[in-house]
């Protein structure tokens, strides 16, 4: 018997999730904010310009998964955030619940502490929203 639960977050709390992503977009230097499910599928996204959502979703899961594995190998237990520092900006990813990840793309001029702070403060609310949805 399959134990798969289809999680369609689009149908519940979607407005609030989009508001949260829009709020992240209002942070200086942030160019995209997305929620990625455990299969690497982008369920929600706010962005300034066109992004290949299939590719970014899978990449975010793969990078986060690899970083989390590395952390386990050195005894760091669970991973709270992965920050990729690139020539043109940052990609930050943070786990929510049930394999979902919040990912934020920024330009180079973003204030890293500001974006990180917003993410850290946003995650508890997103966790509650997802828990609410998953328990219904």
């Amino acid at each position, binding site marked *: 018997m399959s134990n798969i639960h289809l999680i369609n977050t689009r149908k519940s709390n979607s407005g609030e999730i989009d*508001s949260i992503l829009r709020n992240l977009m209002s942070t200086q230097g942030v160019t995209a904010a997305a929620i990625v499910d455990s299969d690497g599928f982008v369920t929600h996204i706010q962005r300034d310009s066109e992004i290949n959502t299939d590719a970014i979703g899978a990449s975010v899961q793969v990078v986060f998964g690899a970083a989390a594995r590395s952390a386990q190998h050195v005894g760091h237990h669970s991973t709270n955030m992965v920050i990729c520092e690139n020539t043109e900006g940052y990609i930050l990813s943070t786990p929510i619940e049930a394999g979902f990840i919040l990912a934020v793309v920024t330009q180079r001029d973003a*204030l*890293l*502490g500001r974006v990180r702070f917003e993410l850290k403060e946003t995650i508890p*609310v997103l966790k509650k*929203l997802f828990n609410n949805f998953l328990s219904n």
Partner: protein
Amino acid sequence: MHWFESQLAELNQLAEDYLQSQQLPGANIVNASETIRNKRKQFMEAVQNLVDKVGKIKGISACAAYHDGLILAQSQNMPAIDAFGATVQDSVRAAQQGAAMLGLGDIEQIVIVGATNKVAMLNVGPLVLCISSPKQINLAAALSQAV
């Protein structure tokens, strides 16, 4: 209470309001989420405003706010932001250890005075406000007048 003290008190109140908003009962998480977001926005805007104002005060070299040693808000004339961040984190950690041994209570301020310049670090809610100036500047006096 002089200008900067009143600004700090206001900021601390906004930080406290934000903290309180996070304690709201989670029955309606959607409404609570918006409230939390708005309170955080108010706090962050106030931080940025204060940083901008302090950065413009005559005698002040730069002002910035940090969270866990990472830059969160900065005045226009902010050099070496990462070095500031590292100093903030190192200083706060060392001060916390010392404070625990000496029973000082929670750290409110740290001032490092060099031969040329000095840096003051002030805890505001979850953040550290960092103000730098030439050594000879009287910070209390410089910060006492509204910008």
